[in-house]
């Protein structure tokens, strides 16, 4: 006792020293000064006026800064935390200046925002720095005058929780959909011309905020775009066509249009000097063609019939335009070719992905593509070569056999043909005697399968010596049916049901034969926020379009604050008239609108009748309204909608029509060399010439798990059979299992020695089946321990496992009639940190001088640490796990080890309860089936009969 007291004092002293050291070390005199220098805010060039770039001189490495925090506001007195830029304090920041691009829609207010306005940590009184913008509707309303706000509302909240709200502006009778903060994420984007204020604060590795930089300001402005990154042209002599393809610059979201000009009378260098000057350049230009650019998402290629009077040496430039201005590219001289140089016209089809929840499609434009990826020499004479290949295909494309024909360079007859009927992505070839394999090989790949045969489809590659890899590697080229295609890209475009414009999805290489398209189910509805409403001192305030309105709150009006968005949503597309119909999500408002439209049409018509001369503008208005009103009586979806009674049913029907429509797309594939040689696939249309719109299907049954289902049923049937047999009293034989027979002795030993036992369930949770198996073993061990009155300590790794084990052990004590000896403090939670757990278990083992240790469950690296310690205290150890990597350590350090399945069998073995024994028997008989099938399957596949193998799932 004396000794331990002294030790205690010693350690307390040590703890005190550590604390002292910590506090001394934290009193660094340099704190609180390191202001970021030379903070600047500038407009981001060539954007559409919603971005600023903030830059500053980073502090020296010795300041040990871990992050720079950026604060932004619309008033110099109030800046909100916007974002932090992390820095590694050991290395510091390498450059002279740090840049932060603040542009586009960024975080504004969401559910994680603070509840009320909070000043930033460690600030002096009067500091302008605040934490994130709080969930305060009045503040949001005020800020909305300087930002564009976008609300992303949870889908179900949008339709079910929208509150019909009216503006405080008496002149505005519109019903808005109002949402509280809890239903939406608000995003904000800066507005052109508005002044924003910034400050930056450095934070060091000890979380100390340095002083903020003096507030600086800046305003974003829209700019003309950057010039195109590249323009390529091709003359197609035989078809008298000019083809262009171009690359957009980095910032492209705001590019609206392109125009291609012929530039004559000036050379390329001189053009560079005049192209940015509208007066000087106009003399050289002749417009050829133009089109929309859609923010760089639309096709970046075009073909025009060759205009007259264009010299063969003509040069061209592309002009990219946005609202503010335009930019010309450098000159490009077209290549002189003919249409035989064009890639093969792509053909493609769109297919639903099988066995999914209905959010994926495949766009497929080719047969499966096979190619060699690498080779490895297997011996020193280089006489055997392992060849690895890759097979790109969709789940629905079946390939039965692959054939690889290897030919020596300079010869035509293959020296070997490999038939891959089992595609394991590699095979071995023998290099012909006397041939220096460094000269390389040609590989010709063909296949047999569904829709593809060996004659119509071949792929070829060359294997060449690679000095750096010291092996034969495939060349970059790939010949498809004799044509080199490695430079060809397969570009996939798609368009929605309402838009005629195809938007680019992805550029794919020639090694891809399909594209997986994700068409997610909508989970949010996004809308620009029109304004904000809040109630203050009994008055309703609405901030909208830069105006502030106020009126007394009416009786029955909600006192909550709302972000107001338009309640109109697109409802359905009428293909016949090409009209997109929208509806209000509030049923009564929608019905009112229908009535209003009809009335307005009548008034307008009478106006036209009265008018003396025809007014084309009014007529167009009438025509548009007339089509729409007509649809109220002719469009099936609308007719059905207008029959609906009740708000819930209304929104449900709207989503039922609108969401599937928004997920339908028409696809297009284009093959291009990216330099102007492109070929579009034929439009994907049905027999009547109408476009096919594809959408993924939600599957009710996973066909790839059909065999699994049968296997589960067979297994279940076996279990039921044997459980019934066992219940009827049939004796079921189980062979002795060494480790399990020893459990009794091990418990007995602990009792004799008067020392406790340790039962360790491993570090698995309930999702690890080994833990579940261990639970059924501990049931038996606990009973024995209770019977012999031996203390059993169970330190738990998982806190959900803890109550279960407590329950099991308590029950064990009750069942043997010793409830008094149950001590719940013997079964405790330790920690779910792997090595902290081991440290503690080792400590317990040594101090309690364990007589017996059980390690049954899921283990990883910590296993050996515990069993070795157990050995040093001389405990008998019984271990068991299904984790293959730990079994060797158990075998070498424990007295008995249950390997893999033995662990699962243990519960039934020990318990001898007929139901459990029945399942064990079922398990055994299922094993016989497996062994039988594996033997038969192996024999069949050795005879190249792959039927049985192919029934089984691959993954």
């Amino acid at each position: 006792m004396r000794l331990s007291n002294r030790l205690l004092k010693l350690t307390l002293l040590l703890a005190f020293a550590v604390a002292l050291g910590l506090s001394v070390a934290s009193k660094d005199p340099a704190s609180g000064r390191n202001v970021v220098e030379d903070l600047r805010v500038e407009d981001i060039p060539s954007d559409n006026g919603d971005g600023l770039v903030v830059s500053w001189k980073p502090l020296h490495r010795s300041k040990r800064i871990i992050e720079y925090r950026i604060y932004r506001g619309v008033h110099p007195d109030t800046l909100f935390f916007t974002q932090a830029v992390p820095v590694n304090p050991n290395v510091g920041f390498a450059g002279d200046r740090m840049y932060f691009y603040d542009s586009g829609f960024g975080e504004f207010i969401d559910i994680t925002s603070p509840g009320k306005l909070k000043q930033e940590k460690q600030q002096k009184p009067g500091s302008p720095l605040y934490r994130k913008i709080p969930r305060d509707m009045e503040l949001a309303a005020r800020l909305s005058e300087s930002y564009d706000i976008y609300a992303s509302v949870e889908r179900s909240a949008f339709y079910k929780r929208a509150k019909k709200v009216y503006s405080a502006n008496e002149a505005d009778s519109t019903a808005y959909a109002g949402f509280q903060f809890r239903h939406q994420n608000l995003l904000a984007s800066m507005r052109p011309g508005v002044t924003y204020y910034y400050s930056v604060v450095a934070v060091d590795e000890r979380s100390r905020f340095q002083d903020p930089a003096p507030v600086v300001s800046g305003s974003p402005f829209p700019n003309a775009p950057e010039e195109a990154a590249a323009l390529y042209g091709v003359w197609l002599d035989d078809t008298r066509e000019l083809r262009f393809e171009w690359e957009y610059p980095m910032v492209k979201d705001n590019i609206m249009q392109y125009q291609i000009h012929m530039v004559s009378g000036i050379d390329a260098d001189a053009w560079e000097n005049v192209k940015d000057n509208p007066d000087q350049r106009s003399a050289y230009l002749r417009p050829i063609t133009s089109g929309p650019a859609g923010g760089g998402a639309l096709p970046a290629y075009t073909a025009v019939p060759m205009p007259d009077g264009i010299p063969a040496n003509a040069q061209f430039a592309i002009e990219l335009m946005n609202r503010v201005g335009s930019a010309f590219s450098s000159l490009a001289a077209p290549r002189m070719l003919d249409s035989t140089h064009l890639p093969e016209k792509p053909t493609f089809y769109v297919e639903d992905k099988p066995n999914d929840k209905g959010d994926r499609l495949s766009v497929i434009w080719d047969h499966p593509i096979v190619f060699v990826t690498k080779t490895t020499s297997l011996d020193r004479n280089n006489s055997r070569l392992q060849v690895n290949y890759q097979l790109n295909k969709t789940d629905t494309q079946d390939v039965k056999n692959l054939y690889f024909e290897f030919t020596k360079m300079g010869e035509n007859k293959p020296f070997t043909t490999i038939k891959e009927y089992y595609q394991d992505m590699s095979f071995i070839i023998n290099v012909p005697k006397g041939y220096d394999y460094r000269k390389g090989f040609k590989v010709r790949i063909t296949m047999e399968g569904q829709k593809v045969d060996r004659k119509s489809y071949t792929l070829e590659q060359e294997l060449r010596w690679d000095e750096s890899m010291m092996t034969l590697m495939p060349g970059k080229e790939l010949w498809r049916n004799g044509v080199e295609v490695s430079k060809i890209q397969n570009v996939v475009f798609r368009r929605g049901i309402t838009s005629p414009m195809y938007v680019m999805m992805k550029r794919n290489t020639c090694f891809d034969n399909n594209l997986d398209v994700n068409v997610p189910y909508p989970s949010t509805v996004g809308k620009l926020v029109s304004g904000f409403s809040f109630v203050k001192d009994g008055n309703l305030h609405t901030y909208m379009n830069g105006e502030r309105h106020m009126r007394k709150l009416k009786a029955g009006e909600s006192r909550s604050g709302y972000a107001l968005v338009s309640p109109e949503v697109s409802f359905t597309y009428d293909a016949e008239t090409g009209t997109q119909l929208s509806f209000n999500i509030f049923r009564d408002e929608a019905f009112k609108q229908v009535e209003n439209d009809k009335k307005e049409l009548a008034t307008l018509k009478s106006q036209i009748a009265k008018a003396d001369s025809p007014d084309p503008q009014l007529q167009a208005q009438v025509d548009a309204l007339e089509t729409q009103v007509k649809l109220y009586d002719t469009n099936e979806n609308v007719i059905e909608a207008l029959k609906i009674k009740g708000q819930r049913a209304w929104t449900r029907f709207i989503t039922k029509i609108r969401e599937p429509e928004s997920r339908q797309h028409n696809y297009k594939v284009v093959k291009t060399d990216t330099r102007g040689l492109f070929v579009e696939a034929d439009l994907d249309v049905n027999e009547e010439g109408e476009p096919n719109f594809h959408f993924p299907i939600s599957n009710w049954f996973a066909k790839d798990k059909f065999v699994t289902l049968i296997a589960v049923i067979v297994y279940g049937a076996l279990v039921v059979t044997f459980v019934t047999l066992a219940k009827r009293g049939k004796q079921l034989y189980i062979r002795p299992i060494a480790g399990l027979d020893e459990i009794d002795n091990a418990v007995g030993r602990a009792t004799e020695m008067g020392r406790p036992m340790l039962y360790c369930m491993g570090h698995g949770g309930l999702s690890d089946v080994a833990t579940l198996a261990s639970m059924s073993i501990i049931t038996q061990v606990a009973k024995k321990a209770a019977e012999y009155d031996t203390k059993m300590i169970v330190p738990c790794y998982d806190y959900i496992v803890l109550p279960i084990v407590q329950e099991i052990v308590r029950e064990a004590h009750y069942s043997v009639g010793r409830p008094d000896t149950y001590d719940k403090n013997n079964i405790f939670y330790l920690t779910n940190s792997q090595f902290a757990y081991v440290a503690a278990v080792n400590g317990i083992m040594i101090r309690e001088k364990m007589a017996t240790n059980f390690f049954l469950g899921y283990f990883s690296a910590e296993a050996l640490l515990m069993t070795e310690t157990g050995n040093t205290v001389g405990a008998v150890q019984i271990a068991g796990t299904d984790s293959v990597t730990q079994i060797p350590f158990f075998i070498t350090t424990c007295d008995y080890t249950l390997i893999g399945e033995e662990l699962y069998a243990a519960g039934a073995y020990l318990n001898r309860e007929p139901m459990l024994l029945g399942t064990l028997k079922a398990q055994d008989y299922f094993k016989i089936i497996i062994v039988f099938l594996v033997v038969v399957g192996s024999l069949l596949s050795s005879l190249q009969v792959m039927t049985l193998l192919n029934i089984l799932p691959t993954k």
Partner: protein
Amino acid sequence: MKKTIPLMIVICGGILWLLWVFVPHTIMADGFYSKFYLPWARAMAPFAIILGIFSLSMMHTAKIRRRAPKWQYSYFFFAGFIATSLAGFIGGTQKGGLYMWMFENMAMPMSATMFSLLAFYMASAAYKAFRARSAEATVLLAAAIVVMLAQVPLGVKISKHLPTISQWILDVPNLAAKRGIMLGVGLGSVATTLKIMLGIERSYLGGD
């Protein structure tokens, strides 16, 4: 009420989960899993750790009260736990705070050192296998030595065939053993989970 309803929850829920595997439809994938199960399971989770903390604290309190052997060290447990929790709740969990500092400079070095002790323990385990003189242990040790030596330059100096043998051991017997064991483990897993789902095994519910 005490045992039947939980058992029914397990059985009915088990069937739902079984369906979830075979029915990829959005009703199961989103309706059941994402919209029901995940939020429910997560809303339950915070209480379980409180249970864990209570359990360990009670064990240590009992130790201190009973003046069990080495009871003084239980104070260190409380000190570590309370200091870390306070540091986290008051100072925040960001890098640079006391909370992270304690984790990085106390818990991490200790855990990493514990892990590195394995190097010593492995040597002693190998020695034990050597001493055991059973045929199984010898085979095990021989395979281990071959595979280990093949990874270091020394191994290649001993014999140039060592890497080939090692690769063969890994690719052939090791693969076969793993495959056989995994198949058995798979069977055992199915049996164990099936027993729970059918209500044959219900020890986890304890007595009444």
